[in-house]
């Protein structure tokens, strides 16, 4: 498309074709996605760590403090019978952090960018998406830290590590969908900002992160299986801690949750986005 393309915008037109198509008419004009994502991700980084002396280290210190506390409590006080408890915990915690930070930050992805949204028309889905990319980068660094500790403690590599990027991709798609859903919904329902915090806290304890799935009471397993994060944590822990094949069931459910979340999240976002500029 030439940049001088004519664009028509009307109320009917939108109802027929969907505003997203029109609004992303500017998509054709954005060849520099790389730059855009880089600028937006850089923006996240600046906003989060500007002025703090330790900067990025905070994103490692936060899960680390969690690991220390939980290890002391569960390994040495409650005496959970799990070998190498810290590693067991970290394999789950860093991926939980990816999910929970992305979700809680996504509440502001649209409403905190109101000035940009009103000033220039662009595919707004880039806002939550770049936020998730930013969290993914943080997870990548946390993962590297994990692997260093893992190897130092005598862990060895196995072919299951090759599946890690696949698992990560599936969770990325899942988180992308949830973030799109929440960032768009928050525009119309500001309470979500608070609701999400409570939901995340509940979900953390209902996901087998500090305890193994095998220790949940018999008969409650289906309850854990409907929690998407269970399948991700189970897969990661199998690959990174148990060195075992997670089982086809968990892969299928992980992919299923990702597809559903992405489909619902992106379509709801597309449906709501035309009204963002008015509502933010």
């Amino acid at each position, binding site marked *: 498309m030439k*940049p*001088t*393309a*004519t*664009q*028509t*915008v*009307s*109320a009917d*037109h*939108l109802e027929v074709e969907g*505003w997203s198509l*029109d*609004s992303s*008419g*500017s998509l054709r*004009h*954005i*060849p*520099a996605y*790389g*730059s*855009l994502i*880089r*600028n*937006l991700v*850089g*923006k996240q980084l*600046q*906003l989060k760590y*500007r002025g703090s002396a330790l900067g990025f280290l905070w994103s490692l210190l936060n899960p680390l403090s969690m690991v220390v506390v939980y290890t002391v409590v569960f390994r040495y006080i409650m005496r959970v019978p799990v070998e190498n408890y810290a590693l067991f915990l970290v394999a789950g915690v860093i991926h939980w952090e990816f999910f929970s930070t992305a979700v809680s930050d996504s509440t502001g992805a649209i409403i905190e*960018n109101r*000035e*940009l*949204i*009103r*000033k*220039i*028309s*662009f595919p707004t889905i880039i806002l939550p998406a770049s936020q998730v990319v930013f969290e993914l980068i943080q997870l990548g660094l946390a993962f590297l830290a994990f692997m260093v500790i893992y190897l130092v403690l005598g862990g060895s590599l196995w072919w299951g590590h090759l599946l890690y990027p696949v698992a990560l991709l599936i969770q990325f798609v899942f988180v992308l969908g949830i973030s799109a859903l929440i960032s768009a919904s928050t525009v*119309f*329902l*500001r*309470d979500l900002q608070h*609701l999400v915090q409570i939901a995340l806290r509940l979900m953390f304890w209902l996901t087998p992160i500090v305890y193994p799935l095998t220790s949940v009471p018999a008969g409650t397993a289906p309850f854990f299986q409907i929690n998407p994060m269970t399948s991700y944590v189970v897969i990661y822990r199998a690959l990174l801690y148990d060195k075992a094949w997670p089982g086809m069931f968990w892969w299928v459910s992980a992919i299923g949750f990702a597809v559903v979340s992405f489909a619902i999240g992106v379509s709801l976002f597309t449906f709501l986005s*035309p*009204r963002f*500029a*008015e509502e933010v």
Partner: protein
Amino acid sequence: MSAGAMNLQRNSSEPANGNHAVIQVENLWKKFMVRHNSNYSLKIKFLGLFQPRYRERREEFWVLKGIDLQIRAGEAVAVVGPNGAGKSTLLYLLARTLRPDRGQITITGRVAPIAGIGLGFHHELTGKENIFLNASLFGWSRRDVRCIYDEIVNFAEIGNFIDMPVKNYSTGMVARLGFAISVHLDADILLLDEVFSVGDAQFQEKCIKKMMEFRKKGKTMLLVSHARQAMDLLCDRACLLWGGTFVSDGPVQKVLQDYAERTGRL
């Protein structure tokens, strides 16, 4: 609905050089919802299910009631009118950040980000980061932005403040930076919202020079303004937005006179 739509009388002073219309607005309607009892809270929404007094009352407010407008390539048009007449709304619609409720807008060419006060900046980011962010939303790569970066900073006269968060800028500095970004992005159509209301005289002069340069390149401009002198210098045409429709369209002097008469009458 067309009864309320007063079609403007097109003045014969339009350039007759056969330029095609780059902005074509046909019967454009835009409403806003005025909400009473709206605080987006779940609790109140829940109570509203049982008690009407907690229910959200929505009142429609039509800002634009059937606007027609045609702007040709290379024209500079001023939109004037009282506060709340819908001038800024019109700019948002042309920038395609707001969606029309009825009618149609056809735009040929690329529209620059609206230059206006308090628009488009992230206040925690530095001026520099904001330049890159704005330009990349417009579709520019970082490499391209680097080429015009110095030009933008020099034009905006921000100096060392460029590496400070925008929240520390004065209102004038923010407006200057916004204007500088919009004019340097090489768009075909420029939308300006009250840019002259904050800059000092010297900067205004600079803006006007820049905009004249812009016009010479055959680009199109639409400015919302109360600055008489700037409109006189820059625009060959003005439109008066009054009560949701254009009631006067023609040479700047004539339209401003109409405007004065109407305000005087009230």
